């Protein structure tokens, strides 16, 4: 038959690049990511902070609240690498333990925002109509507030604590993920393979989780990585404003706000927490940029 002959021809073409036969989109991305030097730098920075956070007890012998009042505001030395604060506590220790807080805040805030944002985004995008209307309006309203301001409002209602700051940051980020997912879902909903899935007789749940979501991961991952950085910045800002972590938690923003009075006397109390915040955020930004280039070159703008 004419058809079978033709197939053989095209099979030959395929055999030609047989080694590519198992390349999945995931591996392809990893390969591109490895080539991106900035992304690697970002990854290393984050890795270093993760290691510091995990091994904080091994890196330093003192605790976060070991006050030696006779040892106040000592400049950096061999004993206290980053100096001591106004209660004579070792700043390096506090920064190392503070890495745990910042990373966890970033993680939980982003995860929370991701879960709720994705959920709402899917509902709005997939079902459309009045529910889309409603969810989109709520997103509009939340986005009408500059994020730090909305976070302030939420903490004002919930009361000051690290946990509430975390909740506030998560809420503030929900519409960002929600909108992203919604627009992605809407564009995917029109795709033929989603229509095909429906035509196959698949249930909505299966279509969403097997067809729509996996194809929206690229922008979500990028946004989550960048969101990590923003969440850490926002937590620090809330801490600085006295609306986040409480003493003696060594949250970096809180450390900065506690140290403000000593800017003339002991600048190191301000320099090191600030640099730590900057480096972690830089790490996530670099990695986010790298992921964006690797996952979805079209998203560049």
């Amino acid at each position, binding site marked *: *038959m*004419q*058809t*079978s002959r*033709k*197939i053989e021809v*095209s*099979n030959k*073409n*395929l055999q030609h690049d047989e080694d*590519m*036969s*198992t*390349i*999945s*989109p995931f591996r392809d991305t990893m390969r591109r990511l490895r080539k991106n030097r900035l992304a690697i730098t970002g990854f290393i920075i984050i890795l270093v902070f993760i290691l510091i956070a995990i091994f904080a007890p091994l890196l330093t012998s003192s605790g976060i609240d070991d006050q030696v009042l006779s040892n106040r505001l000592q400049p950096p030395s061999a004993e206290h690498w980053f100096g001591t604060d106004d209660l004579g506590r070792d700043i390096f220790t506090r920064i190392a333990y503070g890495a745990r807080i910042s990373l966890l805040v970033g993680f939980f805030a982003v995860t929370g925002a991701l879960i709720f944002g994705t959920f709402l985004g899917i509902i709005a995008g997939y079902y459309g109509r009045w529910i889309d209307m409603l969810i989109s309006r709520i997103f509009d309203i939340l986005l009408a507030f500059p994020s730090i301001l909305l976070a302030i409002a939420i903490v004002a209602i919930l009361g000051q604590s690290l946990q509430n700051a975390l909740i506030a940051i998560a809420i503030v980020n929900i519409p960002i993920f929600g909108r992203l997912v919604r627009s992605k879902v809407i564009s995917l909903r029109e*795709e*033929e*393979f989603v*229509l*095909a*899935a*429906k*035509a*196959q*007789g*698949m*249930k909505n749940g*299966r279509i969403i989780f*097997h*067809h729509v979501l*996996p*194809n929206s991961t690229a922008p979500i991952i990028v946004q989550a990585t960048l969101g990590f950085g923003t969440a850490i910045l926002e937590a620090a800002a809330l801490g600085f404003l006295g609306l986040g972590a409480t003493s003696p938690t060594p949250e970096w923003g809180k450390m900065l706000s506690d140290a403000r009075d000593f800017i003339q006397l002991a600048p190191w109390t301000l320099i090191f927490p600030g640099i730590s915040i900057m480096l972690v955020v830089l790490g996530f930004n670099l990695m986010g940029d790298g992921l964006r280039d690797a996952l979805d070159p079209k998203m560049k703008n």
Partner: protein
Amino acid sequence: MSTQTEAPILKVNRLKKYFDVNGGIFGRKIGEIKAVDDVSFSVNKGEILGIVGESGCGKSTTGKAILRLIEPTEGEILFEGEDISKVSDEKMRQLRRDMQIIFQDPYASLNPRHTVEKIISEPLLVHGMNDAKKRKERVKELLEIVGLRKDHASRYPHQFSGGQRQRIGIARALANHPKLIICDEPVSALDVSVQSQILNLMKDLREKFQLTYIFIAHDLSVVKHISDRIGVMYLGRLVELAPNDQLYENPKHPYTQALLSAVPTTDPDIKRDRIILEGDVPSPENPPTGCAFHTRCPMAMDICKEVRPSLQKVDEEHNVACHLYQDE
């Protein structure tokens, strides 16, 4: 060819699909596009019904509305005697086992993140084949049926050519032994050389599995060889419906005549004057009154501007909607 004796497998009665147009300050509905406007036809078991028309005439919408991939605005869709236009979503989902679709774009209709195996086995899974081994077997079987190799199963769509992808799409449609397949311009995105392979494959499959096709195309030449009957659509309406040979030999509607005159013939003896239609297709948002075709019809009469012609039988099995042939 025609098997009139049995009851039709599918009967479409006065199907309509209007899309709302929103605008204005409050984003209210300010108009509607009549993509499918009062279309009726039936398809017999084992038959291939071709539907032809220019792009935007509503033929794809008709196909998708039959499967309720787009919810029809009005009308009845009787599948094996049951009106499926109003059944519950769950019931519809199960009915889709029997009614399948092959899409136009083989690049867009396959999930890029799934392997061929997953693509083809998914419909099996959702319709109750829970045994993974059985599914694997069936996938291999299907791949061979559509002329692909078993080991293609582990690959991703982007590693295939357009023709091969369409074969995957066909295999997926066949997976659950459907009774009716709507082929939505399945070859129009393919190279001409590949088109005939796919068409031949589909023909073979029909015979092998006693399938019924609704074959949608924008080009009369594609459906000529495969269809038993052909319907011609213009601006959301069916203007002519006739058996294959009658339509090609004796087209009644001026629009059909014009379409046909554009088809290059392989037979040098038959010579047709090419009829060139003037003007553009009118906007479906604001279709002309009366016969929608009258603005471009070389034979338009006064009545055409006023009265909409209905699809009427002019010959046995030959129906046309045109005042030239209306009795009264």
